[in-house]
Every structure is written in C-alpha cells, then in structure tokens.
C-alpha cells in the first residue's frame, strides 16, 4: 500500500482548498456550503419550534383554566385561540419538522455520507434557504397583521379559509397561504438537489446498496414530497384567488366545490406524513446499528419497504374525509389502503427490533432517543388503525383521540427524531462531546411528560371531547369532573416538558464553552462522515483525499477483525499502522 503523499495533519493541508465563500456574518447570508445551509435550516427550525411551543403553552393554559390571564400572553380570546392552534400546527409541521429533519439533516448528511464535497447545485441550495427564510418572515408577519393570524385550522378548509368574514382576518389568511407556498418552493429546490446529488455524486465504489439508509430515506421522502406537492400548489393558487380576487373555486354558492380543496390538500397532506417520517426512521437506523454493534437486519428489505410505503401513501388520502360527505363505497376502498400501509411500517419496526436482538447495546443519549422513537411511534401507529377504519372513525373524527394519535406520530418524528439525530451527529457538527448526564436527564424529563400529555387526551377523545372547542365550561357534559382533571394534567405535563427543554439549551451552551473535543469517530461508526475531521472542513475532505468506498455502512462485529467496526472506506486486508486517533498523526 502506498504511503499517502500529502500531510495528514490539519492546518496547511487545507489551505489550497480553504473556504472560498464569503466570511463573517455574510457567510450566513451567501454561503453555498451545504453544512452552513444545514445549520441555517436547523437553527431557523429550532427557533420556530420555540414559537410553536409557546403557542401550545398558551392554548393549553386556556383549555385547562378557561379565561385565565396566561402569563406572557394575557387573556385568550376565541379568535386568538383559533389563530394559535392553526399556526401551532402549521409551524410545527412546515417550519419545524420539514426544515430540521428533511432540509437540515438532508443537507448536512447527504454529501458527507456519500463522500461528495458539496451538493451538485450549491447555488440552488442557497436559494432554497433564502426562499425558506423569506417564508419564515411571512408566516411570522401574518401573526401581527390587522385581525391577527390566520384562524382556519392548519388544513385551511374552505369556505372558512376562503372568506374573511369567517376566518376574521383578511391579510392574515393570504399571508399564511403565501408563506406556506414559498416554503414549498424552498423544499422543491432542496429536493431536486438531494435526489440529483445522490444519483450523481456518490464516491467511487459506492453502489446503490452501499448507501446509508438515512440517505435513502431522505431521498425517497424528497421524491414523495415532489410528487405530492403539485396538486396542493394548484389548490393554494385557487385558494389565494378565492381570497383576493373573489373567484368561487371552493364556494358552493358560486358553483365551486369545498371538498375539492380537501382532496387537493390531503393528496399532499398524507404523503407529507411519510415525508417527515422517513428521515426520522432513517436516523434511527444509523443510531441503533451503531449502538447495538449489529449489522442492520435486512438492508434491502428496508429499501423495498420504504418504496412500498411511498407508493401506498398516495392512495390513502381520503381517510381524512370519511365524514366530509364522500361516497361510502370510496370510504371502504380507502379503509383498505389505509390499513395496508401499516404493514410496511410495522415491518420497519420489526426490522429495528431484529437489529437490536442480540446486540451489545450501549444506552447513550442518542440511543435512548432512538429507542423511544420506535416505542412511541408504535403507539401512534396502532391508534391510527382505529382512525383508518371508516366505521370507528365516524365516532372518533374530530375528537381529542385524533389529536392524541397524530401527536403520537408527529412528536416522535419531529422532536424525538430530531433530538436523536442532533445528539448523535453533534460531535461531527460542532466538534465537541455533549454531556451525557444532562442529556439523559433531558431525555427522561421530555419523554415522561410527553406521555402524560397525550395519554389523557386519548381518554378524553374516547369520552367524546371535541377538538375545536375554546371553552369547555359551556358544555356541561365535558366541563367538570374527571374531564377537567385530565385537561389540567395534560397542561401541567406540558409545562414540565417545556421547562425541561432549558436543560437541553444549557447542555448545548455548556458543551460549546467547555465540552471535551470530539475525535473523528467518537461512536466508532462506519459511514463516511466519520472519516473526516469534526467538524468537517470546507469541501468535507482534503481534495486529494476524497474517500473511496469498499462496502456497505453496517459492518459491525465482523468476525476475525481486531476492531468491531469496519469503515466503508477501508479496503480489505489493508496493512495496519499506528495512528493517533485524536490528531491523525501517523507512525509506523
């Protein structure tokens, strides 16, 4: 084997390929580096998570203690309550789950995991974030215009969403639609980039089945997004015309059809669930294989399963409309497809359990988050069976059962999945090791209150508590007794969970100040991002040392090897040499 001719130590080796982009604060405005763009998406998403969390706090306070002067907000009027729940849903899905899981981790991981120096269209990537940033400003501005934010629920069903006499805000609703539309454009640009990069920029030797699952998942999610978003954009254009020009696409009085919007929305809306689910599922694969030191069970089956999920996800959308007046025969068909789609997802869960079986499991913070994801998402999936069956859904529709169900899917996806990914790749992203003890305290103080928020809501929903009520005092059957106790329990749990997030921010701050430096490969993992520095330099690897791939990413505990892991870029039978793990200095 030839001794590398270039100096392996850091410093001057990178000079000829140093950061060509703008420096200082301009870097964050005009950088085309995929890692910088990923950070921009991540921090914008985290900021929006705080905004969405604050909204949840305000309306949960109103629900548990009607009429209370909410600290930090004041008394909540019915109109404000509607605007808060609408924008909580919108922000948490479109400005938290999508940018963090898909855009941030997609941008960060895809080039690093396939051994590329950047995305294939770096300028389109930059444009993608800029459009997203504008959309963030638009949605935040819509909260402060005359009449307040949009209050037609995040699904924006017309005629409520199309007419300002119903949704009480003229400009707010239009800005809401424009913001969501711009956000879709941003992810479209990102999605084109992700797919093209995976197709064309893989390192030499990396075949389709050597690509880490998380990259596959993000790319399949991007394909789903791109195939489903067109009809919703068409619907959004029609909705804006209804709001501003006075057309009647969705107004039955003018010859339009309000159900048409529901079809266009949910044709996008249901694949969207899988758009955010798949990246989280992929993150879990990377973490459980690393911390169970096991090869992933059934690699190819995972890929075929997610493709099957993607295809099926286009044929389930009308299960959101069972009581919207669709033909009951159509409801039967959509019941069948909906129940069918739980098969591939259950398959994924079994694959994860089979991967864990017999492994040497290390319960690090990322591993705890990953295991919690599987357990909690399972509850979300199983309760979905009741809602997917048209017969049960007629009773459950628009109750808190639905609300608890989709929070048991979206919370694991958007929050648990994000924390799993964030804590796992934190050493790579920032070059420091997070505090494990604080991380575990944060984990338990998030997971236990999370269950205590939403398990009572399942019970409330089964008791018949309707979702869209501002003050239950006006409904004698729902007002007092055990119903009120459970609402208060949910709210107190939410307060604990929100407070626990400060532990996380403290951990980040403490780590940034005084955390121990992370080596190149602190978790002893196989995929390519662990072969470069932490954090990776501009261009990811020295331009003369781009990686070559020899095998798949899950070769853990291989027999007859000294190490229990086998990095993707290490050839069979390479001669051994002494290397200092921390500095990369070599000797013979």
């Amino acid at each position, binding site marked *: *084997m030839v*001794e*590398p001719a270039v100096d392996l130590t850091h410093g001057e080796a990178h000079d000829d390929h140093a950061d060509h982009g703008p420096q200082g604060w301009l870097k964050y405005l005009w950088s085309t580096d995929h890692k910088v763009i990923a950070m921009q998406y991540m921090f914008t998403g985290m900021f929006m998570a705080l905004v969405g969390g604050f909204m949840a706090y305000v309306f949960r306070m109103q629900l548990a203690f009607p009429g209370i002067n909410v600290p930090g907000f004041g008394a909540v009027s019915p109109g404000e309550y509607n605007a808060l729940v609408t924008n909580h849903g919108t922000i948490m899905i479109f400005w938290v789950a999508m940018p963090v899981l898909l855009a941030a981790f997609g941008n960060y991981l895809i080039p690093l995991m396939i051994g590329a120096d950047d995305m*294939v*269209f770096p300028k*389109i990537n930059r444009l993608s974030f800029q459009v997203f940033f504008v959309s963030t400003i638009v949605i935040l501005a819509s909260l402060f215009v005359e009449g307040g934010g949009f209050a037609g629920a995040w699904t924006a069903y017309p005629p409520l969403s199309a007419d300002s006499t119903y949704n009480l805000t003229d400009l707010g609703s239009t800005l809401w639609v424009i913001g969501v539309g711009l956000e879709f454009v941003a992810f*479209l640009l990102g*999605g*084109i*980039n992700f*797919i*093209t990069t995976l*197709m*064309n*920029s*893989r*390192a*030499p030797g990396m075949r389709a089945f050597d690509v880490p699952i998380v990259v596959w998942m993000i790319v399949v999610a991007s394909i789903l997004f*791109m*195939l*489903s*978003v*067109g*009809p919703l954009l*068409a*619907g959004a*254009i*029609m909705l804006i*015309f209804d709001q501003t*020009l*006075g*057309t*009647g*696409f969705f107004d039955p009085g003018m*010859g*339009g*059809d309000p159900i*048409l919007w529901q*079809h*266009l929305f949910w*044709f996008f809306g249901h694949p969207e669930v899988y758009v955010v689910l798949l990246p989280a599922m992929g993150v879990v694969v990377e973490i459980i294989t690393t911390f169970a030191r096991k090869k992933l069970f059934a690699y190819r089956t995972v890929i075929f399963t997610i493709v099957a999920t993607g295809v099926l996800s286009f044929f389930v959308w009308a299960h959101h409309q069972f009581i919207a007046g669709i033909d009951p025969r159509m409801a039967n068909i959509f019941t069948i497809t909906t129940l069918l789609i739980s098969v591939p997802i259950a398959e994924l869960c079994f694959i994860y359990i089979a991967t864990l079986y017999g492994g040497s499991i290390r319960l690090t913070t990322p591993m705890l988050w990953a295991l919690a994801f599987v357990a909690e998402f399972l509850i979300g999936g199983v309760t979905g069976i009741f809602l997917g069956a048209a017969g049960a859904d007629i009773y459950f529709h628009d109750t808190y059962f639905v609300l608890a169900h989709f929070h048991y899917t979206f919370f694991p996806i958007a929050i648990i999945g994000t924390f799993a990914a964030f804590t796992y790749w934190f050493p790579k992203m920032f070059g420091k090791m997070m505090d494990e003890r604080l991380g575990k305290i944060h984990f338990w103080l998030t997971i236990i209150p999370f269950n205590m928020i939403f398990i009572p809501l399942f019970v409330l929903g089964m008791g018949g508590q309707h979702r869209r009520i501002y003050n239950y005092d006006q409904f004698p059957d729902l007002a007092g007794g055990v119903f009120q106790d459970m609402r208060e329990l949910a709210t107190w749990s939410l307060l604990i969970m929100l407070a626990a997030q400060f532990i996380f921010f403290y951990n980040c701050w403490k780590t940034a100040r005084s955390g121990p430096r992370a*080596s190149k490969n602190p978790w002893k993992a196989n995929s390519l991002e662990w072969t470069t520095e932490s954090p990776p330099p501009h261009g990811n690897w020295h*331009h*003369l*040392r*781009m*990686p*070559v791939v020899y095998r798949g990413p899950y070769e853990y505990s291989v027999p007859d090897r*000294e190490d229990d892991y086998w990095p993707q*870029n*290490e*050839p069979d039978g*390479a*001669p*051994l*040499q*002494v*290397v*200092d*793990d921390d500095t990369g200095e070599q000797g013979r």
Partner: protein
Amino acid sequence: MVARAPIIPFRPNPKKRKKLVSDAVLGMVLFVFVEIMLFAGFISGFLIIKARAVGSVWPPPNQPRLPFEETAVNTTALIASGIVLLIAHRMFLKGRGLGGSPAGGRGGQATPRGSSGGVLAGFGGLLSRPVGRILVAATLLGGMFVALQGVEWLALIREGLTITSSTYGALFYTIIGAHAAHAVAAILALVWALLRLARGKLTRDVLSAVAIFWYFVVLVWPFLYFVVYL
C-alpha cells in the same frame, strides 16, 4: 489515544463517477415531474367542478364559448416551435450546424467561440450558424403562441368572460394563465440560452435542460387544449 489502524488509500484526483444522466438534465426532469403534478391538480379541479355544474350544463349558459377553432392556430404555432427546437437540440447534441466546427467533447464542454466582440456581434454570429437560426425560429414561434393567446384573452374579456364571472372563467384564466406563465418563463430561458450560444458559452447540458422545459410546455398544452377548450 494511540491505536493500530489500517492505511486508508485515497483517490489522488477527485475522480468523478460516470454519470448516467447529467446533473442539469436530471434536475430539470425532476422539476418537470413536479410541474406535471401541478397541472394534474388543476385538471382534476377542472373536471370535478365541471362534473358538479348545475344541471350538468357546461359551459355555463350565459358565458361566452371558448374559441376552439381559432386556438388551433396557436396550438399549431406551439407544436411547430417544439418540433423546430427538437431539430436544433439534436443538431447541437451531435455538434452539427455550428458553422463547420464541431462542438467540443462529451457533455459539458463549451462550443467554440463564433466571433469575438460584444453581444450584438455575437448575434451576427448566431444567425450565421444553422443551429442559431433554428433556435431563433423556435423562440419566435413560442413568442407567437403567447402573443396570440394574449389577443384571444382580450377578445374573451370583451365578450364578458372574466375571472370572477363564473367558475368557468376562473378555471380558464387560472389554468391557461398558469400555462402562459410557464411559456413566458420557458421563452426567457430560451433567450438566455441564445445569448450564451452567441457568446460561445452554451453547453449541451444547459441547452438540454432548457429544451426539456420547453418540451414540457409544448406537450402539456394539447391536454389543456382538449380538456379546457373542448
């Protein structure tokens, strides 16, 4: 920590893998799929609203009819433009029609400079080459389509079909307007490609990407024409 680790080989020059489809073409194809779904959304909206029209009378009785026959002229111009562009595209890919000198090597290489000098001098060079002339013809035919559509819209507005006069008018102006916006964007992209050709900087990938977008605009039109106008 000191450990025994294997020597990792490296690739001395960042060798690029052979690409099945070039970046620009693949990106544009993906974008076209999104556009197809956008128009599928519009068309399904059109069909649903048409299906639930009062008394199944469509178009609504008091609204003007769309000029199906006259629009055949526009349609012909658009399809002719697509065919002309296809000819220019194929010539360019094969490196023919560039004034004798063949285009450079495989994908991504610039064509030889026609004439040095400003943009105007470049345009002279553009028209002296067969490919340039054919591309200009394709662009002009596309412009003709948009212009004829504008004339048609003015006539329809005079006859009382506006975006608020009925869902019929709203659907017509929204769907056909969306197509017109795409046509204008595609023509601008063609003009941009022409400017690059004049400066000798047009690559095969860029022309292919622009051409694919224009083919999409051309090919989606017959569907809109037969669904909306008929």
